[in-house]
């Protein structure tokens, strides 16, 4: 077995290992996208509440 990582050997639709790896990678990617979207939305919401809160607006107006 070679020391270098062979992508086609690890991810393919012929061998049991290759198929399982594809499924694991897809699930992991979907999970990652879900977490990133969730984090992005939470951050946006937090930024908006901070921007439009009464105290913050007054602070912005009066320097």
């Amino acid at each position: 077995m070679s020391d270098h990582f062979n992508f086609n050997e690890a991810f393919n639709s012929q061998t049991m290992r290759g198929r399982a790896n594809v499924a694991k990678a897809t699930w992991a990617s979907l999970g990652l996208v879900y977490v990133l979207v969730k984090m992005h939305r939470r951050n946006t919401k937090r930024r908006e509440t901070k921007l439009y809160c009464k105290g913050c607006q007054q602070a912005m107006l009066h320097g």
Partner: protein
Amino acid sequence: MMTNLFSVFDPSAIFNFSLNWLSTFLGLLMIPSIYWLMPSRYNIMWNSILLTLHKEFKTLLGPSGHNGSTFIFISLFSLILFNNFMGLFPYIFTSTSHLTLTLSLALPLWLCFMLYGWINHTQHMFAHLVPQGTPAILMPFMVCIETISNIIRPGTLAVRLTANMIAGHLLLTLLGNTGPSMSYILVTFLLMAQIALLVLESAVAMIQSYVFAVLSTLYSSEVN
């Protein structure tokens, strides 16, 4: 008079007890005749049906299937067949036309297969999400599709049986209710149509129980 199109399926019984659900177990009354000294032709016919099913399920399960695992599917087939068939007789409650029963059969079965598969054959279960020979570009989509199809399996299994049973009974009831307002000549045709429909429904009763059992067998063979 029918108050509702679906009132024929209402699980109502006297004294606030839903005793009509007990009709599910009426098939058990057929068992004692098996122990009679001289088996009748019905017993022999039934045995040959079960033997054929046993052989078929054994083929479907493959060499990795455990000995005797076909019995659970044969029992499932018998239970559903009895219930579907008895439901075609007047005044007998059809329990298989309710999701309560079909989902109670399909969901635990699927859950057991999933638990067994993911605990004991994790790599195999992952590999099953990508069909062999899928083009590289389609592989991620296939994983999503296979995952969704795997999750909705108990639902489809239960809804298929229930919908088929409801459709047949509804058709028979709707046609039957037009009878009183018809002329004698038309009633003759109605009767013939009803008999033809009843024959069709008998076939559906057998086919659907077979489909349920075969699909359960296939799902079980996938986790081995």
